[in-house]
């Protein structure tokens, strides 16, 4: 006769599992757009974003690149700035 132990699950539900949201609608083209380059301040991420900006400019020409220096655990006002000033955003963590 097998012995059974019954235990309670220790894992908490995450807020994100209860409050899901959809992605913003994608844009048709990057041409003419204000593009945010959001860096979290880790080494290398800024280099990656600078290269992305260079490639976008060479491919789409008439874009406006907006460099945004954030932090690890980005402050809401930085994200609010990106949302207000940019039409699309590209982030890089360095990791």
């Amino acid at each position: 006769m097998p012995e059974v132990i019954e235990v309670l699950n220790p894992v908490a539900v995450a807020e994100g599992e209860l409050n899901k949201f959809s992605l913003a609608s994608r844009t048709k083209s990057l041409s003419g757009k204000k593009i945010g380059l959001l860096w979290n301040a880790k080494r290398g991420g800024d280099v990656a974003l600078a290269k992305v900006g260079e490639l976008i400019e060479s491919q789409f020409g008439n874009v406006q690149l907006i460099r945004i220096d954030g932090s690890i655990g980005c402050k809401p006002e930085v994200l609010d700035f990106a949302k207000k000033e940019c039409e699309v955003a590209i982030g890089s963590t360095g990791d």
Partner: protein
Amino acid sequence: MGIPTVAIVSKRFAEDAKKSAAIFGCSSFPFAIVPDVLTGIGPEEIKSQVEGVFDLITESLTSRSIGQDTDTSTSKARVQPAIMEKFEGADLLESFHNMNKIFLDRGWGDGFPLIPPMVKAVDQMLTGTSRKRQEVVAVLAPGNGLATVEKIAINAVMAGCSSEHLPILISTCEAIAAPEFPLRNLCMSTSAFGILLVVNGPIAKKIGMNSGQCAMVPGAPSRVNVAIGRAMRLILLNIGHAYPQVMDMSTIGSPRKNGMCIAENEEANPWEPFHVEKGYDSQASTVSVFGAGSDITVADLYSYTSEGVLNTFTGRFNADLLHFLGARKELRLVGHAHILMSPDHAKILAGDGWSKETVKTHLFENARIPAKRFKEQRKHNARLVDPEWMWAFDAADDLLLPVVESPDQFDIVVVGGEAGISLLILDICGPVIREIK
């Protein structure tokens, strides 16, 4: 964010990034995954790897198919009671081993055997508080897990705690969830931060905490400290979702992460206890949480004067703290030095008339490092230096800079047994204190 967004992330951190997106409710967030961690490669290699994912970046911002499969359904009940899990074996011992194996396979443990959180044990644990079983005490980063009293109690059972430890764990959850405590950074960093709990007030003695020799660990004299510290580790895992290699990305790791819990040695403390210094009544019981990024032994068994002891402390501060000196305010990383001072050192200092405040001021004025070190360390990330501190790059190499920006960034807790051995813990934030009720 409300606008089309994509993020560049390395293959090694891709799972971490996807999990992070999911916990913020956006599991279909697009990533452009590059082969290497960018902090570990040079600029030319970074540019090359970015070129490799450039088409994916533009597609992620423009493709109509992105995000179409997003499930936005939400659960009506915010919190559900913990579900039951059954484990079978030929006998109870085998059942116990099966439970432990499966829990560890799922990442739910710290590597040591876990006490089975059976209903009877959890119910017994819950007698330690009058708070409701499904009350959400806090939301814990990095996974934004809902810390209900029940989930805290389950993890406390697994760690070997008893019901009288539960109020400390509840208050600790409240403390680490405070906005001023960078729990997300501490848990997810490639550095190896632990979280140190310091208990003050009558509860420490009442529940048998060790504030003397070997207070931090190891062994039987510190069994209560060990159990509480371990419970917090399990809570960070199973409630905060700070699972190693998923959201805890520490490069090497550290035993500090297994749990650090002490009581202040108030009897041997010649000054006011830490919680009284912070404005609490001496008869209040409190828990203070500190980040713990590294620790340095301060050994001085030979000085009989405050001058000698202070010289020893002053010499122990190194350039680690300079990493945060003058950091841009929005980084919210403030270097702190938590001094776990042995009673012998404290006694010598107090005996010569030093208060905690004057000790902190002395350390601020004397623990200094040449500007050359600042320049060498910060030249690669000058963008992270606050404009107010940019002058330091033009300073003379031998100009002495403080290791922190204010005497308030030193904290002193008296702990341990006899002998002149103290411990210096370096951190990226100040302590947060909560009353234990």
